[in-house]
């Protein structure tokens, strides 16, 4: 390979990677697709199947989820004003538990559908927010999931999920509000931990 060929190949590589980067940045669906695909790939991977390998599998999946989901944003939104009163340590504890809860609900749902390929139905963009409408085809009925995303410095990050018509963040926000009326933040964390344990 002479120098000229090398340069051509390099240029092509650079252009291609740039194009894919730009494309991902501009399209919420384009950015969501690879994240979800890698989740599905783990779910259908035989070496991670079964209840016994759940922990390893979930770890793998969550590593992918982290790239496209903004759990801090979700935690802020789900707690609202309460978030602002928390110490950094408590905020961290909350993010950890709430992430775990979403993992149990959302990944649990996807796993229950056995890694069916996700269909992308619609995309709406409004300023720095976007919604991608998807459905996981199922045997008797599909699982509709809407991903609500926000543009974070050029990256579209999921900050809310609507599973089967139910807005996850709003639903949990109202639940947490109700719990915080009769309990303090430490009590809420304890209930979250208890809930997460119930999935094991």
């Amino acid at each position, binding site marked *: 390979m002479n120098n000229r060929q090398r340069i051509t190949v390099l240029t092509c590589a650079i252009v291609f990677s740039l194009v894919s980067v730009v494309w991902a940045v501009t399209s919420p669906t384009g950015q969501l697709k690879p994240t979800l695909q890698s989740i599905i790939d783990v779910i259908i991977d035989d070496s991670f199947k079964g209840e016994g390998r759940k922990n390893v599998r979930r770890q793998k999946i969550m590593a992918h989820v982290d790239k496209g989901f903004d759990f801090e944003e979700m935690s*802020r*939104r789900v*707690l*609202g*004003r*309460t*978030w*602002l009163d928390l110490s950094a340590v408590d905020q961290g504890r909350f993010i950890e538990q709430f992430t775990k809860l979403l993992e*149990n*609900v959302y990944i649990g749902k996807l796993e229950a559908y056995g890694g069916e390929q996700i269909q992308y*139905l*619609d995309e*709406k963009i*409004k*300023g720095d*927010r*976007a*919604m991608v*409408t998807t*459905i996981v085809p199922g*045997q*008797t*009925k*599909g699982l*509709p999931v*809407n991903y*609500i995303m926000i543009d974070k410095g050029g990256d579209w990050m999921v900050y*809310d999920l*609507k599973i*089967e*018509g*139910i*807005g996850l*963040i*709003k*639903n*949990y*926000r*109202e*639940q*947490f*509000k*109700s*719990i915080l009326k009769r309990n303090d933040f430490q009590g809420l964390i304890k*209930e*979250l931990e208890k*809930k997460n344990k*119930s*999935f094991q």
Partner: protein
Amino acid sequence: MNGFVIKRILLVFSLICLVTGGAQYCSAATEAGSMEEPDWLDDDPFGDEGGNVGGAETVFDPLEPMNRFFFEFNDNLYYLILKPVNRFYSIVVPREFRTCFGNFFYNLASPIRLVNNLLQGDFVDAGAVLSRFVINSTLGVYGFGDVASQEFGLKPRPGDLGQTLGVWGVGEGAYLCLPVFGPSNLRDIVGFAGDSYMHPVGHFNDGNMVANIAFYTGRQVNNLSLNPNVYEELKSYALDPYVSMREAYFDYRVKLISGDQAADGHPQPLMDQEGKYE
């Protein structure tokens, strides 16, 4: 004396059934998939209210203590009576039959959906309801099959008086969790009462309460058997199941009202995916 005992039994069964109202609404929420959405991109988590994403959308629940009491009551009813009954029913009656019964019950309530779509000025959907009724009552043999959806691509269209009132701009009023009946609100329960006058079953048996209740029980048990686990799933995800169900019901109704045109939020799955009835 014997008649009295039978009436008693029917009454108990009727109680059983209505709790499914809750499960039914939830499952309906689950089915309504891709349609016009209320605007999900319009929220502000740290707005003036602080922590009120989509501020106006807080459910008005002044009767919470009473509602919570009935929620607990329904919860017990579900686990103590409904679930065992449903388990037995699902074993005895094969799924194909249950699907057919579900179609039959759904078809029978067509007048309600027809009138309400007309009241909402939605003539396209009203036409679809009418066509579905005619096709399914004849080709579908008394409504046991859903030929209209499979052969003619006519999907079910929802329609109830609570929804109509919502389209007309009537607010929900206070949230209600009713014993046996499940989640509702002031507007929807008024609508439910109005709709019940349009249901044919009442006109066939001379206002015989027991027959009505027996019919309703059968329908609800059958519906539950087609959507098992909905309630239990909601409970497994929730830290406060009462609030979770309240919000889910609210979302479901808002969607039916605002995104009505494309909505597909009928309460029961009307067919197997394979769509086979033979």
